[in-house]
C-alpha cells in the first residue's frame, strides 16, 4: 500500500485550476519527485496534502487514512511533515527551540502540569531536549543549538528546517525545493543526506525540485506537472526523454529539435 495516495485531486482558485484531476502515489520508503515549470501547481499540491488548502474534488489517503477534512495540525499528527520553498523557520527562536516545536505531535504534557512542573513534565522535557540534541547532531548542527535560527548561515537553516520536520518522526516528508540557493557542494551534501533519511530512517520522501541533477540522481520515480496536469510519470530516464516534458520545459520548437537529435543519434 502506498504511504500517500492521491486520487483525482482538483484544486481551483476562482477560475484558475491550479491542480487538475491529479492522481499520484508515493510508495513506502521511496523517494519521489514532482517537477514542472513555475506555477505548475506543485506547491499547491503540497498545501493540499498538508491540509492548508481544501481540495475541490478527489481524495487523498495517508497510510489508508483519509486526509481530507483534517486540519494541518491533525495531519502533522498523522505523520506528514514538510519544509518550505523559502525557508520558514521560527527566526527568533533558537535552533533547539525550533526542533522542539517540530516535536510537538509527540509531546503530551499539559499546561497545568507544567505550572506544577510534575515529574512527568520534567521527564518529557528532558527526553525532548536529549532527542533534540541528537537530531541536531544528525543534521550536522552540533554546537549550534543555542544560536537563533535567524543567525544561522543559509545552508544550516535548510538543514535545521529538515531537522525540525524530522522531529515529529514522520512517515512521509515533503521537501519543497530542498537544494534551492545552494552551491554545488551543498547540493551534493543535501542529496546524500536525503538518501540517508530514506535508507536509515525508512521515511518516504516526496520532493519538489528544480535541480535536474538532484532529481535524476536520487528519485525512484518522477512525476511532471504542467498547468496543474500530470503530463508524464515514470523513472527518471523515461521522463527525461519524454517529448511532452521537453516541450513543457523548453517550448515546442525545442522539443521538435531534440526529437530530431534523438533520431539522428
Amino acid at each position: 500500500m502506498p504511504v500517500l495516495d492521491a486520487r483525482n485531486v482538483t484544486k481551483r482558485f476562482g477560475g484558475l485550476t491550479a491542480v487538475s484531476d491529479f492522481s499520484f502515489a508515493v510508495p513506502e520508503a521511496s523517494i519521489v519527485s514532482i517537477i514542472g515549470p513555475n506555477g505548475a501547481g506543485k506547491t499547491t499540491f503540497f498545501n493540499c496534502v498538508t491540509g492548508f488548502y481544501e481540495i475541490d474534488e478527489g481524495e487523498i489517503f495517508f497510510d489508508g487514512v483519509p486526509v481530507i477534512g483534517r486540519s494541518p495540525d491533525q495531519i502533522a499528527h498523522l505523520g506528514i511533515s514538510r519544509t518550505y520553498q523559502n525557508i520558514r523557520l521560527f527566526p527568533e527562536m533558537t535552533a533547539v527551540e525550533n526542533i522542539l516545536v517540530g516535536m510537538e505531535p509527540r509531546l503530551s504534557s499539559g499546561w497545568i502540569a507544567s505550572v506544577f512542573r510534575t515529574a512527568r513534565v520534567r521527564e518529557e522535557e528532558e527526553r525532548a531536549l536529549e532527542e533534540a540534541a541528537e537530531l541536531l547532531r544528525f543534521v550536522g548542527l552540533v554546537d549550534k543549538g543555542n544560536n537563533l535560527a535567524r543567525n544561522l548561515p543559509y545552508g544550516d537553516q535548510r538543514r535545521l528546517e529538515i531537522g525540525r520536520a524530522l522531529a515529529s518522526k514522520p512517515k512521509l516528508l515533503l521537501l519543497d525545493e530542498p537544494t534551492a540557493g545552494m552551491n554545488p557542494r551543498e547540493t551534493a551534501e543535501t542529496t546524500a543526506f536525503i538518501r540517508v533519511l530514506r535508507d536509515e530512517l525508512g521515511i518516504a520522501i516526496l520532493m519538489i525540485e528544480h535541480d535536474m541533477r538532484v532529481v535524476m540522481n536520487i528519485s525512484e520515480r518522477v512525476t511532471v506537472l504542467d498547468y496543474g496536469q500530470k503530463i508524464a510519470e515514470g523513472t527518471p530516464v523515461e521522463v527525461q526523454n519524454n517529448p511532452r516534458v521537453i516541450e513543457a520545459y523548453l517550448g515546442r520548437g525545442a522539443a521538435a529539435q531534440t526529437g530530431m537529435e534523438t533520431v539522428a543519434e
Partner: protein
Amino acid sequence: MTQEDFRDILRIALLSGLVAASASAIGMVRAFDERDLIVGVLSVGQLLLFSAPAVAGYVAAGEHETIERASALVSGLLAGVLTSVPVLILILIGTVFPSIRDFSGGEYGLINVTPALIEILTFEQGVLTGSLLLAAVMGAVGLISALVYILPRTLGRPIIMAVLWTLSLTLLSEVLQEILRSIFGVAGLRAIFGTAGMRPLPALVLFVVIALVYLWWQGPGRDQLQERLHTAHPLQQRRVRLIAFIVLFVLVLLAPLILGRRLSDVVNSVGLFVLMGLGLNIVVGFAGLLDLGYVAFFAIGAYSVGILTSAGPLGIFNLSFWAALPIAILAATLAGVLLGTPVLRMRGDYLAIVTLGFGEIIRVLATSDLLKPYIGGGQGILQIPRPFVAAPGAVELQIIQPQQFYYLILAGILLAAFVSWRLRDARLGRQWMAMREDEDVAEAMGIHLVKTKLLAFAIGAAFSGLAGAIQAARIGSIFPHSFSLLISINVLSLIIVGGIGSLPGVLVGALFLVGLPELLREFESYRLLMYGALLIAMMVAKPEGLWPSPVRRRELHKDEYEDAFPSDVAENPFTDEPMAEQVVESPNTATK
C-alpha cells in the same frame, strides 16, 4: 566652524527651544514650578525648561566627530543660547500682547501665557534683565553640557549618571521622607528636605556620593566584585544569592510598614497594574495577540465581586469575598474564551480593532439602563464589604488598610508571576512563541491554534479578573467610568515601556507609568502628553523596553548582536566557503 556645522547646531537648538516654549505655553512649566527639586535652586518646571539647552548643548557638541574640543564648547554655548530664542519670543509675545491669552474669548488663546509664567521664565527679574538672564543661563547650561560631552567617558558617565540619579531622588523627596522618617526623625528630615524637594547641601552631597560610587563601580569596583564572586566557592556563591534573595524578600514583606498609609496605597495601585500587566503580557508578549480591550476582564472581575458580595440593595447573594473570588476569576476567564473564539482567525490590526470594540461593549453595557436593575448603571455598585481573614487569636481580621491590601495584591502578583514564568519555559510557552513567529508553520508542526490562542486569552483574562476582584474589594464601590479604554492603553503602554514579553519589565513599566504619576499629582493633566512623549522616546531610543526580555533584546538589536557573534552571521547566504574559490579565480581573470 563650517556653515553646515552651524546649520546643524541651529536646528537642534531651535527644536529644543520650541519644545521648551511649547511646554511653557501649555502650562507645564508653570504647573510643575510648584514642586521644588532642590529648595530655592531648582523646581521641576525649571528642570523641564533647562533640559532643553542641556540636550541641545550635548547633541551640538557631538554633532561632528572631528570637531575640536574648543569648538565643541563653543557649539554647546551657542546651542544653549539659541535654545532660548523661541522662549524669548514667547516672553515677548506674552508681554507685548497680553490679550493673546483670551483670543476669541480664551477659546483659542494661549491661556497659560500668564504674567506668572513670564515671572518664572525671567527669574522674577523683570522682562528685560530676566530675558538676558534666561539666555545667559541657557547658554551656560549648554556649555556645561558640552563640557561633560568632551570629558573622557570614564569621567563624563559618572557625572551624567549622578545628575540623573540626584534629580530622580530629589523628585521622589516625598517618598524618601516617608521612608527615612523613622531613621532621621522629624528634625533630621527638616535638615535634609524642604516641604517638597531636597535642600541644596544634601543634594550636593548626594550628587558627589553617587558620582564617586559610580566612578569606583566602573573603574575597579565592578571587576573586583565580579572576580570575587566568580572565584568564590560555588557553595558560597549560592549563599550570597540566597542572602540577597532573603534580604529582598524581607524588604518586600516589610515595605508597607516602612511606606506608611498613603504610599502603600500608591504601591497598591501599581500592584494592580502589575497584575493586569502580567496577564496582558501573556496575550501580547508571549502569544503575540494584540488585545486593546483588556479592561473588559478587569471590569468583569470587579463587577462579579460587586454583585456577589455587596451589602447594598443590588447585592442579593451576600457571599464573602473569598467565595466570590474564584467565581469572579472564572467569569473573567470565560469572557476571555468568549472573546477569543470569534477572533481566532484574525491577525494583527483586525484583532486589535475587534478587542477594542469588545472593551467598549462591556463598558457600555455597564452604563446601560438595560442592566441597571442588576449592576447599577452609572451609579455603580456600592457597599462592597472588605474581605475578612483568619487572624491569630481566633478573631477574624478585616482587610481595610492599604497596608493590609498590599499583602493580598502581593500574593496575587506572586501567583501570576509564577504561573507566567513556568508557562513561558514550558511546552505551552514554546507553542505561543512559535505561533507569534509564524502561525501557519506552527499549525503545520502540529500546534492546535484554537486551543493555544484560547489558553492565552483565558489565562490573561484570569489575571485581569483577579485584579478587578481585588480592586472592587479595595475601593468598596465600583463605577463603570473607571473601566475606560484608558486602562487598556495604560496596561499596554506599561508592557511596552517595560519590555514586551519580560516579567520584570512589567514591574518597571508599572512603576514608571502608574507609580510616578500617582506620586506627582501635578502631572495629572499632562499625563497623556507625557505618555505619548515617553512612548515615542522609548520607541526611538530603547524599543526593547527598560527591562527587555532576552528575546526582544536580540530581535531589536540585531546589528549589535551580529557584531558580537560575527561567526554565525554576515556570511553570503549562497556560499559557505567561497574564499578559497575566489582566491583561485582571481589570478585567472587577471591573466585574461
